[in-house]
């Protein structure tokens, strides 16, 4: 199936000269929950804002539901709903009007039954006549979500949906996200918490300093995360890994000079002693050995530290 969003060579340089996005390629599959993970200032909001038409890209193209977001912006934007990172609301508007307003803006005829459903799903029904300024921060965020869903979008962007949100809203929100996904809506959310991406997403993209440095299935990613590597610098280079070492699934690198063993750092038995024993039985010598975390782990460690420093 064609991706629901297809991003090619996307770049953004802001007026001040800051390069917020660099040559981003990304495909989002229809119906998935995709988490864009990265520290503050990585370019998550910029990426979302370009797809939604709020920021003009410097380079590259984006299609949403098969429509180019510039040339065919009407068709593209009709399919997209956006919950921005900041709480931007019209203080004096009642909840019901502001949500109906959003539906109209996106070109849909009034549908009170749909608005009612959205408000009830977000526990806003009792507040439908309240002015937005009378609501708490959490309630305002619910209103923002209701506005984004008013026109029945096929693609929903949630920019840092849980920033400053209480536990209850967080739970309701994830429940809603799952429900939306079941109804076929594609969801793209941004976060700077690994746990959040892990909890919700089918796939995760990691963005840092404007570059999309990796995109992975969540399960594959989490598996890699727990991994460490043992590198053995061999005394004599070899052409192939001996069959007798097959069970450790070793990689031969550096022109046969290094053997690399990837193991689960959290497992009780990591297989290193038995590997070394077998090697000495076979008479394979090594000059040096080192273990290190997989490069992904490095990425995450720096991600988290940058994220908390910001």
């Amino acid at each position, binding site marked *: 199936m064609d991706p629901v969003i297809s991003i090619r060579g996307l770049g953004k340089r*802001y007026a001040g000269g800051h390069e917020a996005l660099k040559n981003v390629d990304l495909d989002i599959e229809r119906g998935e929950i995709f988490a864009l993970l990265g520290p503050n200032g990585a370019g998550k909001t910029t990426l979302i804002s370009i797809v939604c*038409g709020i920021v003009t890209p410097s380079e590259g193209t984006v299609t949403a539901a098969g429509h180019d977001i510039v*040339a*065919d*912006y*009407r*068709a593209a934007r009709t399919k*997209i709903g956006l919950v*921005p990172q900041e709480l931007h609301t019209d203080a004096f508007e009642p909840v019901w009007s502001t949500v109906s307003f959003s539906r109209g*803006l996106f070109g849909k005829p009034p549908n009170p039954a749909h608005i009612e459903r959205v408000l009830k799903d977000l526990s806003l029904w009792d507040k439908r006549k309240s002015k937005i300024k009378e609501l708490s921060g959490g309630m305002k965020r619910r209103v923002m979500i209701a506005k984004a869903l008013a026109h029945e979008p096929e693609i929903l962007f949630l920019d840092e949906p849980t920033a400053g949100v209480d536990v209850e809203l967080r739970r309701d929100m994830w429940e809603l996200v799952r429900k939306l996904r079941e109804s076929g809506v594609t969801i793209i959310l941004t976060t700077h918490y690994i746990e959040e991406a892990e909890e919700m997403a089918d796939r995760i993209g990691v963005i840092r300093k404007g570059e999309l440095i990796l995109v992975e299935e969540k399960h594959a990613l989490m598996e890699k995360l727990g991994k460490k590597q043992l590198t053995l610098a061999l005394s004599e280079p070899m052409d192939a890994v001996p069959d007798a070492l097959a069970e450790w699934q070793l990689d031969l690198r550096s022109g046969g000079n290094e053997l690399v063993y990837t193991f689960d750092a959290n497992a009780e038995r990591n297989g290193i002693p038995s590997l070394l024993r077998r090697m000495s039985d076979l008479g394979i010598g090594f000059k040096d050995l080192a273990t290190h975390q997989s490069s992904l782990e490095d990425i995450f460690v720096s991600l988290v530290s940058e994220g908390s420093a910001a």
Partner: protein
Amino acid sequence: MTVGRFNRHGVWAIYAFEMHRFFRTIWTGLATPVITTSLYFVVFGSAIGSRMNTSDLGVPYGSFIVPGLMMLSLFNECIFNASFGIHMPRFTGTIYEPLSAPLSPFEIVLGYVGAAATKAMAVSLVILLTANLFVEVQILHPFWMVAFLVLIAATFCLFGFIVGIWAKGFEQLQIIPMLVVTPLTFLGGAFYSIHMLPEPFKTATLFNPIVYLISGFRWTFYGKGDVSVGISLAMTGLFLLVCLGVIWWIFRTGYRLKS
């Protein structure tokens, strides 16, 4: 490029939102022009008007100033409503929504400017009705009166829209109407015929664009203006085009709307 159909629900949403904002303050919105108009008649119409030589005007002074009063309020209402209408969402950040909606720049402008013009014209008509209580008002060319009213309202609302996008804060919204438009209106023959002025002021006044608007509008009432009605119409059309051009450029470049 398949831009698709006109988004009438979207335009209506903006228009209705803006009108709803006006209705929240409808009583002050309407009482103010009624009171100020009445004051103008008391002060200008009776106190000063009775001492003026009105032989040039062809109508009593009180009747003479009605089109000018309507224009003065139209200019201010247009600029205030249209600039506030677009500045507010920029200020609160809610502008993200129309910008991310399937709306063309034309539709966004139509919603905001249409609502601002509707309100400004309504206030002008209230002034006309109030004036009618004090003095005799004639409208010789009703079709052209409406045409001028709509054209000038559209032009000044577009101008207000530009001010609302240009302004960096609410104080700046007030600057243009206070420092430019109101003085030009007072000096532009709202309360006198420029023929009453001695030279060189008479010629200098012809560089004031507002003169042409007021003159044309007054012609639709009493069949007599300071300049010919053709020139007035052409100048009105020219201002409209200039404003449209600037707005086209704003959306083209994203000036203060998109980064």
